[in-house]
């Protein structure tokens, strides 16, 4: 398009920007000359784009034209509107001003419209002014009647991406969101979106994204806030930490998405803690030589637990904070913090487990940290709740930050933690980072093909005791594979622990991080039995071209349905009364689901809940039908306390005390793990004691 430029004849030299760039432009005048910065709104990272904009006075009231891809801004040196090309040099335009425009002087509030080719500027007490960018003489006129509304204190405004209105948040202690009609200058107050606790706000740079989010850069602190102007009760939340300046102006193509950025680190706490970009999750631009610990990883978005990438990609970059002591209510806890580089550490621990990091959860505030490892002592408040919770630690060069939003450097690391009462010991089976594996064959009472992958469960058990009495047990259960079409449920019996000794109302359990409200404690049982699901197939599908879940070659998945459960007891149980680990994890036939001929014959119909499959020699529950004893291949002997074994003493379920690499479909256990036979044949357990570590690698399932 042709641009008429009166003062200098360089119209052809003004190259436009790339179409609708996603970064925000901030123009500041730190000394006497203006400087252009490009700001990644997502993290607040910024870079100097130019410190030679061609004049020796401020540029203000800038806006980005979606129509011609230039910046326009008010040139204080020539006291007129100027056009800025991709070399960031301003060229003054020969604007034809009406009398009111002449009297208004310079403008520091302005933006380019989206729906029309015009620049609008505002001057308190003078009104709203319009420069028509379509007409070669650039006529500048006051919007009729706008002077009567020119009583607001703003330092910038921005055009909404599609509704035609201008929005701004006022300066001072209470930021009011205003919606301004560009045809009259009349404004509507949409409410207070932010209140200062000390000092006041000066929102010198304001811009939109396509979703109607207004971004506000506060001059004094550089903090960038975000307000969704279309919400019923709009509020400004901290979005990121950008550059600060006493003179600040911003422009942005309102139709460009706010991208995450190229080198950004996210947290991995559950979604409620604000981990995803969509939730304004904690995020940091990765800067070489500045991290918690040694590792930091580059992510397109957060991976909230239980799908944390630290678990799924096998690389745990959360290596900056470790916990040499436990977290006991009312006691001190010691953290070991390792930092590469130096900066400030902030930390939050969700003491009351409400799923958010609140102000009272801040355990570490703006602690200066430098290269190396140091201890940090935090006090666990007396009101903290015992149980599992999450912590977030953020390293950055900005001292005071909140647990959400973007920062231009450093790293965020999220950790699951366990808070206990004073004096509580926790033992983990097999350890707090690994699982034992229970592998089932599900053709019971008939023998199966012994590929031991009909149902494969990973299980971790935490036992909480004080004064040698167990107060509660915790289970982490993951479904690792299902190489069978039958429908099975999964449950754990606590042999010798009466159902009545469980604090049923206090059982805390979740599926995929979602808290469950129904009781998992099964009725009709004398021992405590907790049911995780009555149909494992409700939680997975085989995937494209796959009959089963993680059993056939090429049917891999990083997804593991995960259950967490804590079962507290009314009367703490002495150690010698506790059942042997791993207690009694078993599968059962899903009620009303089809089963094989022998199973049906034994009980005269679909067995449903009556059919259970346990580890060898674990007695079944009260709901099991004794009709299965001796049916099919079952050779149980109740009198000798021998259960779930065939005539050769082989089991329908085996336990492997490791996160086991299970056989692929149709590959029999002894072919995949040749040392198993020697182990099983020696009742002392001393032959091939770790048989499960040496598979034929061509026959194990790999994702």
């Amino acid at each position, binding site marked *: 398009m042709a641009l008429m430029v009166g003062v200098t004849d360089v119209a052809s030299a003004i190259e436009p920007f790339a179409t609708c760039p996603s970064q925000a432009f901030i123009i500041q005048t730190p000394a006497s000359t203006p400087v252009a910065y490009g700001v990644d709104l997502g993290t607040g990272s910024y870079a100097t784009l130019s410190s030679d904009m061609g004049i020796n006075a401020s540029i203000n009231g800038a806006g980005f034209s979606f129509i011609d891809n230039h910046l326009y801004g008010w040139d204080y040196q020539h006291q007129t509107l100027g056009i800025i090309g991709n070399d960031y040099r301003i060229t003054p335009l020969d604007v034809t001003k009406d009398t009111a425009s002449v009297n208004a002087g310079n403008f520091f509030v302005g933006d380019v419209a989206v729906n029309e080719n015009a620049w609008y500027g505002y001057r308190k007490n003078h009104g709203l002014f319009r420069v028509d960018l379509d007409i070669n003489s650039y006529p500048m006129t006051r919007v009729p009647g706008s002077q009567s509304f020119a009583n607001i204190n703003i330092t910038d405004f921005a055009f909404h991406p599609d509704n035609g209105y201008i929005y701004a948040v006022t300066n001072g202690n209470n930021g009011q969101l205003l919606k301004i009609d560009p045809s009259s200058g009349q404004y509507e107050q949409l409410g207070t979106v932010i209140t200062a606790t000390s000092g006041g706000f000066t929102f010198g740079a304001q811009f939109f994204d396509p979703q109607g989010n207004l971004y506000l850069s506060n001059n004094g602190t550089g903090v960038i806030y975000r307000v969704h102007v279309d919400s019923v009760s709009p509020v400004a939340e901290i979005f990121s930490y950008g550059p600060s300046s006493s003179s600040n102006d911003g422009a942005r193509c309102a139709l460009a998405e706010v991208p995450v950025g190229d080198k950004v680190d996210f947290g991995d706490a559950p979604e409620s803690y604000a981990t995803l970009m969509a939730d304004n999750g904690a995020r940091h631009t990765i800067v070489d030589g500045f991290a918690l610990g040694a590792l930091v990883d580059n992510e397109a978005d957060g991976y909230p637990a239980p799908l944390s990438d630290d678990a799924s990609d096998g690389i745990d970059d959360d290596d900056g904070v470790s916990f040499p002591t436990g977290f006991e209510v009312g006691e001190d806890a010691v953290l070991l913090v390792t930092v590469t580089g130096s900066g400030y550490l902030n930390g939050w621990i969700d003491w009351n487990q409400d799923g958010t990091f609140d102000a009272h959860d801040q355990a570490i505030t703006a602690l200066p940290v430098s290269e190396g490892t140091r201890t940090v002592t935090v006090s666990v408040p007396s009101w903290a709740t015992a149980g599992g919770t999450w912590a977030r630690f953020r390293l950055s060069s900005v001292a005071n930050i909140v647990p959400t939003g973007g920062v231009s450097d450093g790293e965020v690391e999220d950790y699951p933690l366990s808070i206990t009462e004073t004096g509580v010991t926790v*033992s983990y*089976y*097999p350890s707090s980072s690994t699982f034992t594996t229970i592998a089932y064959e599900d053709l019971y009472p008939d023998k199966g*093909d012994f590929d031991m992958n009909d149902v494969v469960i990973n299980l971790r058990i935490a036992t909480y005791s004080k004064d040698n009495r167990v107060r509660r047990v915790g289970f982490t259960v993951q479904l690792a594979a299902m190489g069978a079409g039958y429908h099975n449920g999964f449950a754990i019996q606590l042999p010798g622990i009466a159902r009545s000794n469980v604090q049923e109302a206090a059982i805390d359990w979740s599926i995929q991080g979602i808290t469950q409200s129904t009781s998992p404690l099964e009725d009709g049982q004398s021992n405590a039995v907790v049911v995780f699901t009555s149909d494992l197939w409700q939680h997975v599908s085989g995937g494209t071209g796959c009959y089963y879940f993680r*059993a056939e070659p090429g049917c891999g998945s990083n997804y593991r349905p995960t259950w967490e459960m804590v079962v507290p007891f009314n009367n703490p149980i002495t150690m010698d009364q506790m059942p042997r680990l791993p207690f009694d994890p078993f599968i059962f036939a899903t009620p009303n689901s089809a089963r094989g001929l022998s199973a049906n014959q034994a009980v005269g119909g679909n067995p449903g809940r009556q059919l259970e499959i346990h580890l060898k020699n674990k007695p079944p529950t009260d709901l099991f039908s004794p009709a299965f004893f001796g049916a099919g291949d079952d050779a149980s002997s109740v009198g000798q306390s021998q259960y779930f074994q065939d005539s050769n003493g082989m089991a329908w379920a085996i336990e492997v005390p490791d996160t086991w690499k299970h056989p692929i479909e149709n590959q029999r256990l*002894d072919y995949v793990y040749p040392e198993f036979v020697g182990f099983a044949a020696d009742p002392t357990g001393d032959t091939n004691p770790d048989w499960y570590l040496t598979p034929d690698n061509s026959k194990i399932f790999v994702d």
Partner: protein
Amino acid sequence: MKSITTRSRDAAASPTGSIAVGYTRAQRLLLLLTLGSILTACGGGGGSSQPATQTDAVATALSSSLDDLVVAPTFNLQATFTLTVDIELDQNTRGYFSLCDPYDQSKSPVSVNFESCLLRGPLVAGQLKESLQVANHVRELMAVIWFYDGSDPIYQRWQQASADTAQELRIN
């Protein structure tokens, strides 16, 4: 019929792939028919999967395999051992005990993954006693006692003793 079903499953899994050795022609035919159902239904389900049992004739065909394996009825196949932990320090010492793996002794301080532990708990009057069930493949662990008064932590490596010896970790 039943014996052939089982043998065919074994043969399908055999590394040799020689699935029909020693069978009559009729058995081979049955074997091929049953292979079809194996491919679609290894475990339960599908409605067509019939139970499999073994016969002596088949069991003697291979040695050192599940076919001729006899497990003692009382052997529950669990691959774990018991580790006794016995900590006894001065009763005024306030410390926190962890037994973890992995660790790196080459670093200073010793680098221990406290997110990967078998036991965590405070010393009560300087003591902590516990009996742990441990996976057979765990050969060594790092015990750490961290003191709240800032004094140097105690690091003690535990290594699995020979099979016929009681496994214990003692710090006093």
